[in-house]
């Protein structure tokens, strides 16, 4: 009987299997090597590359996530609790912005010295101001007129932000427009219900008792929408802009207002040092009613980590403090 085999004495079937496995192994190694080479060169497969949207504040990032879902990567420059008026961008922010396909800012000089616009300009990235279209409250800042930037603190204005975001992301990714609009419709209705719920909650506070004293002048839109008088020792910004910061006159006015209106409680803010308001509360003989979310939302895992959660907690804190 004739036996076929190689010099090593292996069986013919073993040789045939080896002949098939070797090229297969080579093909797999080649494919892996090509994939690693492509990743090292930043050539991620087109299908997996999501558009990157970089937002200045936590509120804008939350609105954007509600609209884009998992279709885009949403990143935020500010951490929860950070103050947009005084924030100084870091090299990490510049690298993040360089990865962006779209940048979103609040505008109206909320971002002190326009840091978000500067980051986007330096990186050569498009930027959209999401507060466009709101009816601004004009503040008198030592004789100058300043538009109050804290417009998101009413659900109606938040709806304008959301509409601007839908428009911006639909231009960035036209194939996703239908999805963005569908998500936005659901979220806008949640904002509508939130608006109605806030009115219902505050309805139990007599109008003359609706006085909101907070750390800085962030609640003008909120106060106007829900029938509050408001006062703050620090101006529209915690930074060094015109009309910003604390003056002795403002502090005296706030203490006088608390006494005149018989205010029961004053409120500190999560993104502003509470020391000044604590001093005012002591001077005026009132208690601290709680902590409000204003320029920034809460940490992940807290009740204030979303816009709706932040507004809900603010309303409940105010209710509890003023009742």
């Amino acid at each position: 009987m004739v036996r076929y085999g190689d010099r090593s004495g292996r069986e013919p079937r073993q040789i045939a299997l080896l002949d098939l496995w070797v090229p297969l192994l080579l093909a797999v190694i080649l494919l892996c090597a090509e994939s690693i080479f492509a990743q090292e060169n930043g050539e991620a497969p087109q299908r997996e590359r999501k558009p990157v949207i970089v937002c200045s504040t936590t509120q804008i990032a939350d609105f954007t996530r509600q609209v884009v879902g998992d279709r885009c990567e949403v990143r935020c420059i500010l951490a929860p609790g950070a103050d947009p008026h005084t924030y100084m961008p870091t090299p990490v922010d510049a690298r993040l912005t360089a990865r962006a396909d779209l940048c979103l800012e609040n505008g109206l000089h909320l971002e002190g010295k326009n840091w978000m616009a500067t980051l986007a300009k330096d990186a050569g990235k498009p930027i959209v101001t999401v507060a466009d279209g709101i009816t601004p409250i004009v503040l008198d800042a030592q004789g100058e007129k300043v538009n109050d930037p804290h417009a998101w603190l009413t659900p109606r204005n938040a709806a304008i932000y959301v509409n601007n975001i839908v428009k911006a992301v639909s231009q960035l990714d036209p194939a996703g427009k239908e999805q963005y609009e569908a998500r936005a419709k659901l979220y806008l209705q949640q904002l509508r219900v939130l608006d109605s719920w806030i009115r219902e909650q505050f309805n139990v506070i007599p109008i003359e008792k609706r006085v909101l004293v907070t750390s800085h002048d962030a609640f003008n839109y909120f106060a106007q929408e829900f029938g509050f008088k408001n006062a703050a020792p620090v101006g529209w910004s915690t930074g060094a802009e015109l009309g910003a910061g604390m003056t002795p006159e403002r502090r005296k006015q706030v203490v006088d207002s608390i006494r005149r209106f018989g205010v029961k409680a004053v409120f500190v803010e999560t993104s502003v040092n509470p020391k000044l308001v604590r001093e005012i509360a002591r001077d005026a003989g009132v208690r601290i009613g709680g902590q409000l979310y204003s320029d920034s939302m809460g940490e992940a895992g807290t009740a204030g980590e979303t816009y709706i959660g932040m507004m809900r907690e603010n309303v409940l804190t105010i209710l509890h403090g003023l009742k």
Partner: protein
Amino acid sequence: MRPIVAALIWIVLVGGLTLYTHTREPVKASRSVGPQQVEGTFALEITPSFAAEPDPFALRSDADRGAPALTIRVNGKEALRVTDRTEPGRPIRVEPVPGLVQGENEIYVEANPPLSAGEGAYAVRVRFIRDGRTVTDRTFWSEPGSRIAETFLVKTLAQPQPQEQGHGH
């Protein structure tokens, strides 16, 4: 020689499969025969108990059309869009009703109660009329603060004996 032949076979197999998966077109849905239109005179009468107003929380991507106060869709196609404030209790009539087909028809009703009116509940009455006879009469209520957005089915037969079906409300 044999390893080279085997490698060539593998390259042809894997290459052919890759080429096929990249170039094949998605399976196109087979065309179905369109639904038949129905005969008769149909009307929808909508009576909101409140002054419906344009929703400030509407999506504004098509801003040129304006936010709707009241919208009616028949089988997914818009049959009525009111962008002005409506009068409470005053019926709004859609006649003829576009887009009706023989068989089941889904009617979508959307109305926006005024936000300033507080936390009350509001209602919209919808009547589906065939040849002057009311065949469906439904009333939809809003949850406090939210708009009314409801659907219901009407069955239109060849003979004028339509029947209404519930839709889980």
